[in-house]
């Protein structure tokens, strides 16, 4: 279905960003977030039609590096005897646009490859015997559903504009969609309106663009705004000035004015504001949005975790404060040296071919070997089929990332929450300190009040983890099911992105008093049972760390562990070292199971 860009209802800001991109493709792209059914991809395709003549290449986020970057064109190479490159999607988008849907779900190899090409304007190919650096001047149009998670921050920094269409469609927009749909029924030709007007505007703006001037104080104004918002790096301001210029050109102005600066702040600077600034960063940016789902009546109960390692409040109950000696790693956890990645003959990433017999034949390597032995036996004639002998067979060898995603689901409700978070923090940081040897990544979910919040998306960065856990809010009820649900969601997304297996670590006393659906208060356990089914289906392992003292135990945490098929440890006096050790041990078990045959 093709609809002229101008006729798409709503998404005004996104449409506008695309217009600016059409005027100056040097803006390197626009990311457009919006809920499902907001016509995001329709918008992108209409844009392609508007700019007919410029390449518009769709790059599925599942595209493998050889498709994205390019690789050996086996057929042509064999036919001609000359090494031929199969051009990748990025190279094909040179001079035009690369479009990706669900760009927030792309894995790091995808996002970093695209980001590197965007930033340098060159595609560096070092693959399959090829070494080349063709120009890659293109702009990225990425659409996504913000409900599915954020876009890789490096990729987000590589393009000028970021738009999230948050508000649900207005009445007028809904009517517009309906009337358009109604007219469509009567025949598509009726709405095949034309983009001519827009195209003229773009052409006019393009020719005006080089003449648009920026006054010295306007440069300063944009830089000051970037500084105030705590934007990282300097790409943002460079883009912001460019956005302002394009905006002015589109508005038929030769000098930028307040409107243009506003647009640049809105489209380029504001989306890069660091929502959780370093405490040292400028105070102007220090607004951390409260968890949107936390109801107001809980806020009285909100407390921040004491900044440094202040003694935890349950000292009164005889628990010793955690020992802070992170360099002393428990011997049991250090026993075996885990290689970062393991070799496999069946699955993982194909890294090389080998003569040892294995299940999967490496075709290219086999053909090359055959060519060589033919050459030697001197019976190679043009036009004759290449004959591979058994001795020419080469087999694929793979590497498997034997990592593990550890998701801490922490009960942040009630009086003991500070302690639990404290211990989980210590354990998480130890895991990350060890991350390279053990290939752990860590995510943290806290559940309190009547909802669960992801405090930390999967990461290997100790500094990010520390910041997230320092800012955790505690107090309120115990929405155990919501915590499990959120954790399983993280695991699901990680798996979609080709990530490692996951281990969910529940740090709780097992008292579940708030169901994630309000009408299910009595059915909390039923809900947990059904989540357990999901966990099993998704192969998420679980470990329950019970923080109740034996005297107060109601057996709830044990029941939880049974329901989830989880391992269970009771660590009422847990220091972070003890938590770390149990998690590391459980982690090795999970990995042992997941290891390739």
């Amino acid at each position: 279905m093709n609809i002229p860009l101008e006729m798409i209802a709503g998404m005004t800001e996104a449409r506008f960003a695309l217009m600016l991109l059409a005027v100056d493709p040097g803006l390197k792209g626009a990311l457009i977030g919006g809920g499902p059914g907001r016509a995001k991809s329709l918008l992108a395709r209409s844009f392609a039609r508007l700019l007919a003549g410029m390449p518009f290449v769709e790059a599925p986020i599942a595209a493998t590096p050889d498709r994205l970057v390019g690789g050996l064109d086996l057929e042509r190479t064999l036919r001609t005897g000359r090494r031929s490159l199969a051009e990748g999607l990025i190279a094909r988008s040179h001079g035009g646009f690369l479009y990706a849907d669900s760009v927030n779900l792309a894995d790091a190899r995808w996002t970093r490859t695209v980001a590197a090409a965007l930033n340098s304007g060159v595609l560096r190919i070092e693959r399959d015997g090829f070494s080349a650096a063709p120009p890659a001047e293109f702009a990225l149009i990425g659409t996504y559903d913000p409900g599915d998670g954020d876009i890789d921050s490096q990729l987000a920094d590589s393009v000028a504009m970021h738009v999230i269409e948050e508000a649900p469609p207005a009445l007028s927009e809904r009517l517009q969609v309906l009337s358009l749909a109604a007219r469509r029924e009567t025949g598509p030709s009726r709405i095949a309106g034309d983009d001519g007007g827009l195209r003229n505007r773009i052409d006019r703006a393009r020719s005006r663009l080089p003449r648009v001037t920026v006054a010295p104080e306007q440069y300063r104004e944009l830089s000051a705004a970037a500084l105030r918002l705590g934007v990282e790096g300097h790409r943002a301001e460079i883009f912001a000035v460019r956005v302002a210029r394009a905006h002015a050109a589109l508005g038929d102005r030769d000098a930028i004015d307040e409107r243009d600066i506003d647009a640049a702040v809105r489209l380029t600077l504001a989306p890069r504001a660091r929502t959780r600034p370093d405490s040292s960063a400028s105070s102007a940016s220090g607004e951390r949005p409260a968890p949107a789902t936390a109801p107001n009546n809980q806020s009285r109960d909100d407390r921040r975790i004491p900044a440094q390692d202040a003694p935890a409040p349950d000292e009164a109950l005889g628990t010793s404060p955690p020992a802070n000696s992170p360099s002393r790693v428990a011997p049991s956890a250090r026993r075996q040296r885990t290689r970062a990645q393991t070799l496999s003959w069946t699955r993982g990433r194909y890294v090389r071919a080998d003569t040892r017999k294995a299940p999967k034949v490496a075709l290219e390597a086999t053909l090359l070997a055959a060519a060589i032995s033919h050459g030697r036996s001197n019976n190679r004639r043009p036009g004759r089929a290449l004959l591979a002998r058994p001795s020419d067979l080469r087999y694929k060898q793979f590497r498997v990332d034997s990592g593990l995603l550890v998701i801490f689901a922490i009960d942040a409700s009630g009086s003991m929450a500070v302690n639990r978070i404290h211990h989980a923090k210590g354990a998480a940081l130890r895991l990350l300190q060890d991350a390279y040897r053990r290939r752990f990544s860590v995510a943290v979910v806290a559940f309190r009040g009547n909802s669960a919040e992801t405090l930390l998306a999967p990461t290997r960065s100790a500094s990010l983890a520390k910041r997230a856990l320092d800012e955790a809010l505690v107090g309120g009820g115990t929405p155990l099911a919501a915590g499990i649900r959120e954790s399983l969601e993280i695991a699901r997304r990680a798996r979609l992105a080709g990530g490692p297996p996951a281990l969910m670590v529940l740090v709780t006393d097992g008292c579940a008093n708030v169901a994630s659906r309000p009408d299910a208060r009595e059915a909390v356990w039923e809900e947990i049972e059904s989540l357990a089914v999901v966990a099993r289906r998704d192969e998420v392992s679980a470990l329950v760390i019970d923080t109740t003292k034996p005297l107060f135990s109601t057996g709830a945490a044990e029941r939880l562990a049974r329901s989830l098929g989880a391992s269970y440890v009771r660590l009422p006096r847990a220091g972070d070292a003890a938590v770390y050790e149990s998690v590391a041990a459980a982690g090795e078990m999970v990995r042992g199971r997941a290891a390739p045959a």
Partner: protein
Amino acid sequence: MGHRGTGKSTAVRALAELLPPIRKVKGCLYGCDPDNAAEHCSECAARLNGRARLPVQLGPVPVVDLPLGATEDRVCGTLDIERALTRGEKAFEPGLLARANRGFLYIDEVNLLEHYLVDLLLDVAASGRNIVEREGISVSHPARFVLVGSGNPEEGELRPQLLDRFGLHCRITTIQDIEARVEIVKRRERFERDPAAFRQEWEPEQDELRARIGRARRLVRDVTVSDELLVRIAELCLRLGVDGHRGELTILRAAKAQAALEGRRDVAPADLRRVAVMALRHRLRRDPLTEIDAGARIEKALDRIVDRNGAAA
């Protein structure tokens, strides 16, 4: 390592134009040093056999990019496909490690480098030779290079063994001064409008820097350090509890280079102060629970050893 968008890669890629050319054996795939027979590749060794010297040419110092997504065959070299197909010959086609010999190997987003490539780099960096045993090829060639990495620490930690291989570690943060930021935007705009004119505008500065590096390179071999300062360096590392000896050796070397860059023949306490943080930042034992930046700890220790004016305290 540091914030994104602060010009890290731009700076590294700008290095190539600043380095004075070096002498290479003419026609050698690895750019062997004609004056250092001990490090010759097998071809050069064979060619030299019996002869007094090999033909020489001047060539640029290689600055080689190792992009994310590079495959192992391109990094270490592999079978030459064309020769295999057209002539049925088994020939070696050198990879990035060969190209980087005697120069720089740059890895952007070094903390995201595939782990098998990290293993490979560690082996090569330790031995200075790349040994290829794959697809029926067996080759060993010299591969000595300076490893340059950049990345954002928030993306993940660098593997300790790899971190240790880097001599210096600089931390780059976003500039907070508005005038400087405006200047960055303006220069970038000028560059994009007319790259050639921009280059020309900066050529005198480039020339001067190039000449300074050339002079410093000739001078650095003659730079000396007083015994007293050696004691200070050792004391500093001891005080900070740095493991091993790479810390003090790196400080010594960097301080000499710093003195040479300033055209001096002896290392001053100020040189020590200038290089200590970058030489040691990544060698301190890390305590994930502490807020204190490694740089601040080193500065503090420095204050007790060398005073602010550069005199030994």
